[in-house]
């Protein structure tokens, strides 16, 4: 079903390269692009992790050029190590298309408010 979806062309290369993660990448890409409406969404290949990731800007901070954020999609069944990354969002995808986003930062970070 993925192949006939309008979003497929943007993801085609990564879906073929890393088939194990194609479901979560597809769902996260659609959610970020269409539902959350992030701007300048790019699809990135994380070769060392052997998975794809997304990068873009949230609509509220879209005008700020520094505000590129990284999103790594994964599914509930996986165990994942991301110790080497600085700051990113982890998108956990479930079978019914529910996605929860976790913001991961190194160390303890106090909430802004």
């Amino acid at each position, binding site marked *: 079903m*993925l192949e006939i979806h309008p979003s497929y062309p943007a993801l085609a290369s990564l879906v073929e390269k890393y088939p194990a993660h194609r479901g979560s990448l597809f769902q996260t890409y659609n959610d970020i692009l269409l*539902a959350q409406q992030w701007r300048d969404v790019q699809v990135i290949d994380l070769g060392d992790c052997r998975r794809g990731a997304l990068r873009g800007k949230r609509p509220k901070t879209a005008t700020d050029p520094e505000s590129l954020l990284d999103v790594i999609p994964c599914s509930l069944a996986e165990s994942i190590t991301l110790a080497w990354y600085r700051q990113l969002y982890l998108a956990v995808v479930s079978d*019914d298309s529910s996605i*929860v986003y976790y913001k991961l930062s190194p160390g303890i970070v106090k909430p802004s408010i």
Partner: protein
Amino acid sequence: MILVHFIYLCTPLYCILYHMPNVSKKNPRIKCARLISFRLHSTMNKGGARRYENNRTYAHPLPLIFLDSSSNRTRSILGLLGLSRSQVNNPHCEGYYDASTRSVWVVTQRDSEILWRRGFFGKGNLSRSEPSWFVRQIQDRQSRKVTSNTSNFSCQEMTSEEIREKRRVERKQFKLDRAAAIAKVAAEAETIFETEGRVVVPALFGPEIPSGATWKPKAAEIEPSLDPKLSNAENETAVENEEGGEEPLEDMEHLQLTLSEAFFLAWNLDCLTILDPETDEPLSLPDIWNTFQHAHLAFPIPSFPASELQFDNPFLVHYAVYHHYRSLGWVVKNGLKFCVDYLLYKRGPVFTHAEFAIVVCPVYEDPQDQEISNTNLQNASPFTWSWLSTINRANSQVMKTLILAYVTIPARQRLSRQTLNSPACFAHYSVREVIVRRFIPARMRD
């Protein structure tokens, strides 16, 4: 002459009292009251109207409807004999099986609506519950063309996403107000110390600091269009830009059913046909049974040669729980947002919040099976106290009761492999619930 003029101005109920002119001195009581109701219910406020609408839209708990056109008398007479003339109205919905996302996609508007409205099956893949992405996009486009005052609160009801945004904005404002109040109290304590030398401990709560119970959102913020000419000019340019680049909007959303939901509908109610996306052919029940289990084994690529199906397949374990609660009348939805497996709603997400959060804990009847198993079932091994404490705390905050649903996986020795060929194997699974509540001896004595 006493004129008593009484008009209730709450929709949809109007109450008009008739007065009797000269009789009033002898009989001061109002002679008669006629209640004219425009709708056939007795609730008198906006919440009531919405409840009425919800009761109408979500009247059917399952996609199958039973229609009986005979009169009440015929029905009661036949009922005494144990007979019924009801006919089953089956909507015959269709969905496509997708291996990558391990779900069934319902792509037609008609089927999505039926499955959501009759039983809350599925979830819009671009929405938080009901598929509402298309509606939200249209409202967005319209609000960009109209002046900012009227925005999304025009004639239509807000989608649940819009309500959520409004709630988040209010919560953020509350947090800012609270932080400002705390800072102010701290600053006052500082000045008192500097001027008088007295130490005052700045409080983090108290009468001066807004809390969840006392804070009220400011009255509706209407964006000030100070100069009507200016705002109109801005809007005109905005409209021109939009119309130049406006593409016809295609609905990119579908209703996504989990494999458990799809199997429940297909096997128990026979109201869902699951199609193979490559061939457009309906899958037979044995096909569905095998495919759904294999989907959980080597995800998402089926392994060659196909590995043998076992009793501890995650599909079987989760379906046992799903079926157990659905057949008891609960609406079972995904619990990812609260770190649990399922949420139980009494009637549906539209009516009340979920009261129970379920965590599926599989238990092997024969511990040997667990050792030789390839599947790594979640929560099948003893869990840590910190995990339980975290989940309990998260759910207590949102006023849900945590339930551990223990599913017993039958032993391989006891049953033949043939049992796994059909859903008859579920007779050997059992589900037991354990409710977890934190006990605080100091506080819970009263």
